[in-house]
């Protein structure tokens, strides 16, 4: 026990490993209990079986599974929180020191420029000592990260027999690597998952009954009756949480991919939780298949990296692809932290390899040694075909782009981005807590998180694709959300839209902003979904907003907490959404300032901010204000029980205050954002410039960036943060006022708008006709080809098989005849002959003693005669 505690003390990264494994443990426990229950149930007539059956819950199994799962995830939250606090504390200490030294160095460098002579030499000496201190601190921090917050072990070794070189790139590893992003993600995921578990205990209580009637499934005998699935639900939730946590934890792409697929499976199981409903099983299939498309890209990307770089470990990948940050000779200056392009000179080949000439539009990418020596004398000596860990290599540039896009395609699938967004709204068929989990903490977050994680692997071209994908997605989804009337569908599209924001932000270099938004969004989206779940639960599974209205007095807690969520997502100042969304908009603003040709990347999110405000307000106002639209629903509506409202309140508080910093009114001062900021890759600063100390008080960036200030997106973004935020706020206000006019005061009639633009409305209701498009392009051709194959199977293959079978039957018929007549005939002939002879000989056996005597006498005479004859012959002879 002491040893264990000491281990935790020395390697606090294990807190996160334990937090990851706890939901897995809960999953295994529930699974085992269920298996035992099933086994016992089959033998519940025997005493042993009955004991087992009752031990595992009996006919009414109660809430044990929920308590186990909730306990596990709550414990995981505690572990994550402790780990996160410890990490932040350690990081803060080092970063502060480094920042001080960096600042001093910066000031000295500025002074050096102004002075000359002896004073300059003194200053330079001072700068050197500062630099040494800085390097020392950096080294210590790097060591601490390596020993305390990382770990891995070899899982599968696929190298040829006998070769045990870990560097040969043929080892699959399991490992963990904690930085402030994953620490925050851990806390966020476990916290929200805990609340969702708690909420589910109330929401899924219908499933506790031994027999549940599903009103949405009609069978020949009325509604479907089935066994309650309370335990199964929590089992899946646990596995879901484990998968997501493992994804966040992973330090290599392969482990990410594993969890990635597990997340997919869990979403499949949970979306199809009511699998008897046709719509639910279709939605589950749709989600799964759509994700498969993305995952195919992910696999391709992974394979490209595996082939060219030879490792899955992310840190090693980054070290290979990106140029090192610093060296004593200044050889990397100008390209530090960047992807280095150039050309291979086939004519200039030596033993060490080919010469690599750096060029901005070169066709190859330089791969750096992932065991860098401290000093680079020259950035690139020679490029080897089959580089060792301490040698340079190269790969085609387009391959790196393809790898990045492949990984991004996986994220497109998971995060429901533009071409593959169709599954997410259908995923509303799952129970509402699942929707909350998918939308807030786990599945869709995984895509954005992975893009963030793999950022250094993404080239400028790939990032542009990401930015545009996000831009299109956020706009398309927002417009569809405007016309949706199903409360969960509105939220689903808002999720898609918000994910688009995140992707766009990542694409334009707003790494911090995008992931910051991911975290804040998780809180208010979980809140909104759980709130909608509460509304649906209170309205007896009514999801149509056109039948709601005026529910505020009936469910005040739900309404108020949801209002907090709505304001957060709209980006009202001081709510969490404001901090993150303004950061994204500012980033996009900075990007179009440097690249005016990509103006769309700012206009789309800006417009969508207004649209978002409109449809979110519309949702809240339609649900809670005005006159009830359906008396029946209104009369039966009620507030939800405490297990559902408590998570709402907690999440409501978080939605308001999770992103606060000091001062609260400063959009730049978010404590959470600063923490995410620590995890930012140097590569981002290399690609998009840095922020000078003179203007940034909150962020500790100190190293030398190559870009001049005029071309610096980040500097511009920082300087114009408030401008972008203000423009957005105006649009948001317009949207809210507009929504209030239509749905609260009802001075404008939405039906009129519908009549005015019937085609637009139909187009939006049809979700931009994506489903129809895919049906025409993919589904129907697939089905047609499938039918062809089926026909081929039925006619050609089955025909051949039938012909073979028929000929076999024919042969065996002849064989049977041969058997019957020839072989059996011969055997029977022998038997019959012997039988006939016996039958004939039978008559000899008269049973009369006297006739036997006669035969005896005759025989004696014969023998005598013969004997006499032979004796005589012998005598004569």
């Amino acid at each position, binding site marked *: 026990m002491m040893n264990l505690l000491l281990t935790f003390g020395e390697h606090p990264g294990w807190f996160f490993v334990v937090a990851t494994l706890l939901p897995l443990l809960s999953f295994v426990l529930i699974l085992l209990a269920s298996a035992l229950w099933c086994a016992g149930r089959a033998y519940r007539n025997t005493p042993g079986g009955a004991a087992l059956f009752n031990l595992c819950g009996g006919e009414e199994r109660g809430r044990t599974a929920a308590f186990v799962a909730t306990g596990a995830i709550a414990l995981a939250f505690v572990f994550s929180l402790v780990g996160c606090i410890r990490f932040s504390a350690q990081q803060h200490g080092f970063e502060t020191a480094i920042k001080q030294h960096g600042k001093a160095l910066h000031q000295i460098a500025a002074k050096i420029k102004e002075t000359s002579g002896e004073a300059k030499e003194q200053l330079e000496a001072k700068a050197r000592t500062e630099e040494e201190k800085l390097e020392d601190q950096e080294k210590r921090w790097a060591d601490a990260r390596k020993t305390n917050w990382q770990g891995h072990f070899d899982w599968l070794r696929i190298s040829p027999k006998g070769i045990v070189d870990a560097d040969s790139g043929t080892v699959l590893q399991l490992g963990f690597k904690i930085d402030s992003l994953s620490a925050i993600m851990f806390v966020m995921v476990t916290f929200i998952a805990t609340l969702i578990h708690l909420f589910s205990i109330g929401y899924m209580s219908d499933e506790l009954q031994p027999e549940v009637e599903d009103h949405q499934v009609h069978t020949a005998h009325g509604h479907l009756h089935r066994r309650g699935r309370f335990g199964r639900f929590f089992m899946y939730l646990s596995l879901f949480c484990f998968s997501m946590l493992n994804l966040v934890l992973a330090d290599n792409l392969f482990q990410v991919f594993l969890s990635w697929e597990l997340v997919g499976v869990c979403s499949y199981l949970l979306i199809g939780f009511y699998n008897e409903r046709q719509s639910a099983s279709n939605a589950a299939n749709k989600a799964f298949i759509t994700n498969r498309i993305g995952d195919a890209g992910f696999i391709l990307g992974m394979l490209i990296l595996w082939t060219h770089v030879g490792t899955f470990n992310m840190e090693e990948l980054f070290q290979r692809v990106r140029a090192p940050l610093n060296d004593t000779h200044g050889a990397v200056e100008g390209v530090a932290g960047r992807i280095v392009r150039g050309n291979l000179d086939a004519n200039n080949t030596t033993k060490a390899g080919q010469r690599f000439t750096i060029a901005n539009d070169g066709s190859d990418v330089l791969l750096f040694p992932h065991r860098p020596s401290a000093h680079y004398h020259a950035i690139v000596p020679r490029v080897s075909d089959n580089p060792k860990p301490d040698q340079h290599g190269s790969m085609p540039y387009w391959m790196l782009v393809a790898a990045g896009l492949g990984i991004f395609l996986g994220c497109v699938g998971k995060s429901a981005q533009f071409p593959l967004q169709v599954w997410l709204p259908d995923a509303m068929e799952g129970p509402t807590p699942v929707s909350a989990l998918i939308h807030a903490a786990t599945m869709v977050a995984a895509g954005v998180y992975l893009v963030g994680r793999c950022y250094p692997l993404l080239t400028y071209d790939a990032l542009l694709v990401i930015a545009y994908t996000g831009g299109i997605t956020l706009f398309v989804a927002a417009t569809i959300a405007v016309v949706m009337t199903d409360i969960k569908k509105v939220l689903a599209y808002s999720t898609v839209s918000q994910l688009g924001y995140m992707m766009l932000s990542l694409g334009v270099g707003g790494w911090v902003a995008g992931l910051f938004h991911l975290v804040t969004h998780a809180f208010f989206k979980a809140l909104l979904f759980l709130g909608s779940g509460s509304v649906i639960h209170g309205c007896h599974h009514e999801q149509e907003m056109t039948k709601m209205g005026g529910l505020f007095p009936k469910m005040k807690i739900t309404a108020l907490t949801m209002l907090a969520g709505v304001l957060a997502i709209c980006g009202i100042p001081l709510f969490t959404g404001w901090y993150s969304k303004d950061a994204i908009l500012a980033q996009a603003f900075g990007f179009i300032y440097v690249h005016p040709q990509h103006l769309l990347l700012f206009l789309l999110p800006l417009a969508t901010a207004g649209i978002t405000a409109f449809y979110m307000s519309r949702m809240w106002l339609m649900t809670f204000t005005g006159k009830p639209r359906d008396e029946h629903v209104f009369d039966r509506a009620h507030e939800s029980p405490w297990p559902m409202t408590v998570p709402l309140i907690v999440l409501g508080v978080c939605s308001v205050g999770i992103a606060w910093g000091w001062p609260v009114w400063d959009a730049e001062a978010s404590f959470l954002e600063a923490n995410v900021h620590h995890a930012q890759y140097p590569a981002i600063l290399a690609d998009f410039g840095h922020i000078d100390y003179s203007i940034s008080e909150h962020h500790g960036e100190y190293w030398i960036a190559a870009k001049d200030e005029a071309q610096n997106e980040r500097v511009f973004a920082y300087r114009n943060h408030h401008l972008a935020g203000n423009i957005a706020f105006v649009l948001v206000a317009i949207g809210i006022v507009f929504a209030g006019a239509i749905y609260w005061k009802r001075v404008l009639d939405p039906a009129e708008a519908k009549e005015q633009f019937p085609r637009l409305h139909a187009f939006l209701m049809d979700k931009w006709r994506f489903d129809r498009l895919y049906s025409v392009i993919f589904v129907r051709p697939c089905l047609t080809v499938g039918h062809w194959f089926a026909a081929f199977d039925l006619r050609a293959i089955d025909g051949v098989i039938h012909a073979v079978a028929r000929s076999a039957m024919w042969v065996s018929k002849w064989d049977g005849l041969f058997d019957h007549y020839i072989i059996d005939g011969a055997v029977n002939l022998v038997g019959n002959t012997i039988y006939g002879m016996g039958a004939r000989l039978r008559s000899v056996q008269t049973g009369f003693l006297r006739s036997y005597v006669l035969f005896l006498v005759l025989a004696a*005479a014969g023998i005598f005669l013969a004997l*006499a004859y032979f004796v005589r012959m012998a005598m004569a002879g």
Partner: protein
Amino acid sequence: MDTLNDILFYVLMATTCICALAVVLTQNIVRAAAWLLFALAGVSGLFFLLGAEFVGSTQLLVYVGGTLVLVVFGVMLTAQGPFVNMRIGAAEWAIALAVGLVLYGVLSTSLIISNPPQSDVNRHVDATMPDSSVLGSSLLGQGQASPTGFLTGMPPAMRRERKPMAYLLPFEIVSVHLLVVLIGAAYLARAKRRRAV
């Protein structure tokens, strides 16, 4: 003397033959038993004639005095009205007689052919038959009781001198056999007990 012996032989032979024939031909079982008695007595007479006094007296004692008494007991025990005279058909008679004649023909012909009247087996033998003490010592295991000499009755090439022989083991076997048979007979012929209900 020879003549007397010859006459005695023919008388005894005739008696034996006639009595045996009578046994065959009579239908009455009681009479058959009587005829058999005489036939056996005649045979014993022939034994005496041949000088085998011990065998002859044994014949008289065991056969006539023992076995035949058994047979007569059997006749008396079973000779109830219908069983005294049991006739068989003429056809059966014909078949039996024909078979018997054939057999006799075969036997006698082969006998005469193999032992022609001139052969040395038919010449007079002067040696006296051994008395019962010799038989007794043979039965008690004395090999020297039997005379030595070349075996007769086989082709000359295979002729060889006999070895001393004794008959203790057959004697013992026969005696044990007799015991077994008597026990078996007693068992088989015992009165059936009805199981008390």
